[in-house]
């Protein structure tokens, strides 16, 4: 028995060492040019853009789904598209933006639907990549649920150091690169690119996480105390994916409508046919982007 444990200890100890070395290898060129690394510039926008402002928080449904110039022209507000990647988790997105909020800010939350189910809102692979490769200081502010969630992401992060695509890639044509953003934080790189066919999302299988509704209402309270206004909207989603997740999405809508939050539109209003999608269920083509933006403007205008 002692021999067995000794061998196990040495075997996994050695592997742990390899693992640690892998994790702390320098940030790869792939990670340096990935869109997550644009977080620094997005923080700078949050810091420096003058009031009156409208800040959008969410995942890539915002990156590939907003035309901030139209918003600026229509609403006479300075837009900041703070969207990056859904699997950073809604909780991190909200916690991260709070220090930058100014009195009079309009904040629009557009979380991907998965955030309301299971522990998705506490972050996954992209959160770990962001923290390790871009924003290590973010580790200090993590909650225990986020730490717990990140445990599963370490092997994936470890392997990013060994994938050949982390070192050899076509940076100029990468639609997830940091060069895709315009001055507001929208991706305009894909606007003149051809769309691809893609399968709809799988149905969400996790159970509804009521804690996330509380997180959002707490966030609303904090924003109100700071003199800002929170609005929540539904993400742009492919119609077929919405159909597959109809029950799950209605549950979200039902729970949100029970709160005092300001809600913009309905899930159906922000669902789009395949002809307006880009390359996945939450990403819109240029036509889709403009349509979604106009609908958002209409919904915000009725409230303003």
């Amino acid at each position: 028995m002692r021999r067995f444990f000794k061998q196990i200890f040495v075997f996994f100890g050695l592997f742990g060492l390899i693992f640690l070395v892998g994790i702390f290898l320098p940030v790869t060129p792939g990670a340096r040019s990935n869109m997550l690394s644009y977080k620094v510039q997005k923080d700078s926008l949050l810091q420096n853009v003058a009031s009156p402002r409208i800040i959008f928080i969410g995942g890539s449904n915002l990156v590939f789904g907003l035309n901030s110039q139209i918003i600026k022209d229509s609403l006479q507000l300075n837009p900041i598209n703070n969207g990056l990647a859904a699997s950073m988790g809604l909780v991190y997105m909200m916690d991260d933006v709070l220090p930058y909020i100014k009195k009079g800010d309009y904040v629009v939350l557009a979380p991907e639907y998965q955030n309301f189910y299971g522990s998705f809102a506490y972050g996954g692979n992209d959160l770990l990549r962001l923290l390790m490769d871009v924003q290590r200081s973010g580790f200090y502010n993590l909650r225990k649920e986020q730490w717990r969630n990140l445990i599963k992401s370490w092997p994936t992060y470890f392997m990013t150091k060994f994938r050949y695509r982390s070192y050899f890639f076509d940076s100029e044509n990468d639609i997830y690169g940091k060069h895709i953003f315009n001055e507001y934080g929208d991706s305009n790189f894909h606007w003149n690119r051809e769309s691809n066919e893609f399968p709809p999302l799988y149905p969400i299988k996790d159970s509804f996480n009521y804690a996330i509704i509380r997180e959002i209402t707490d966030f609303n309270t904090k924003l109100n105390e700071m003199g800002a206004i929170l609005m929540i909207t539904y993400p742009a989603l492919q119609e077929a994916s919405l159909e597959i997740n109809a029950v799950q999405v209605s549950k979200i809508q039902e729970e949100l409508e029970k709160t005092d939050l300001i809600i913009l539109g309905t899930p159906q209003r922000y669902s789009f046919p395949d002809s307006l999608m880009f390359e996945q269920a939450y990403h819109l083509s240029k036509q889709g982007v403009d349509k979604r933006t106009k609908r958002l403007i209409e919904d915000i205008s009725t409230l303003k």
Partner: protein
Amino acid sequence: MLFNSLDFAIFLPIVFILYWFVINKKLRLQNLLIVVSSYVFYGWWDWRFLSLILFSTLVDYTVGLRLSKEENDTKRQFLLWTSIVVNLGFLGFFKYYNFFLDNFVMAFSFFGHPINPQGLNIILPVGISFYTFQTLSYTIDVYKKKLEPTNNFIAFASFVSFFPQLVAGPIERATNLLPQFYKKRVFNYNRAVDGLRQILWGMFKKVVIADNAAEYANLIFNNSDDYSGSTLTLGALFFAFQIYGDFSGYSDIAIGTSRLFGFNLKQNFAFPYFSRDIAEFWRRWHISLSTWFRDYLYIPLGGSRGGTWMKVRNTFIIFIVSGFWHGANWTFIVWGALNAIYFLPLLLLKRNRQNLGVVAEGKYLPSLREFFNMTTTFALTLLAWVFFRSDNVGHAFRYLNEIFSSSLFTMPQFEVKDDFMIFNIVILFFVLIEWLGREDQFAIEKLGTKWRKPFRWIFYYAIIMVLFYLRGKQQEFIYFQF
């Protein structure tokens, strides 16, 4: 709890340490730990269905004891049928209720009497088909006086709920597993290391082979109307790798985990894709289920002792029931029937037992004839998998129709991931290792055991790295749904 989850990676060492270090002196406590940890393992998925396992355990334990004291044949039969009705009743209700209801509705509508009964939203308890068959085999063996009933409830509960094989087998016989709960387990270094090696290989099969193949199989089967015959053939091939990697991978992890706790489970897969005919395939695929049906259904029906008609009838019954066991869908029934059609000529020509040994035993390569036979058998299996994987029988026929069209001779086209080429190389590596290890219990049982430690460990580290590098999107084990 899934074997390929973080939860299990934490659960296993805790149970292992408690088992060998804290309560290793008392057999009864060790068995109790197995029961408790098995219930935790199962309850992690849905604790409500623990009551079903407990109820089955209580019924079969009591029936077993009563059978040993009862001499009256009628009363003995009544006891046996009590167990059968309770166990198959649960199985029938949870697994087949809606299937029968739908088919009754269809039949009534067909004859011009449409009815509209209320369907039930039933959750299928994970592993019910496995533990039901396991516990039934105990009662039948006691009834037939092949086995002494146990009066040790904890040992019996451990046998029914033993967590490594609770939810997806192998379906162990009481004659093999139950006595192991009576004896004090002694830690055996070689057995434990062997177990770890088997777990590693099982993980590789599941996480790398099955989960990656599943992504392509799902893509192609779910959009089969859009693809050419050549792409659909590849889809069936991916599914063949998926189902083998998934299920035999689970069995490897189950057997390996049992070895860590000092138990020996029977081999469940013996490299079935290297079979030279369908009869051999069925001796090598899901062995614990095939032998269960052989012993508790085929032989009681008369087996192959009667005339031709009886042989044909029994063969169809066993294959169709086996198909139906896999799921409440006509696709599984057709899959079973198709296998019966494959098998019958061999049985009737008395050639079903001509390939009992391992193919090309002691050689590196098969003969041309063996290679041809293996390829033909694999192709037939592939054809049958199309029914197994399709959503309905119509889907399967459309799928096959496209395969057997001129589009079979076009270049396959479907969306692939970045690592597709690497995955294909890994599949070739996998087939090679399986071929080299085909005479053993699992492919890497002996591979590398005589190498010097650094090389051996590098080999294991390489497998772990591939596990990390190529791990597919986590999919549930296919056989959970059975």
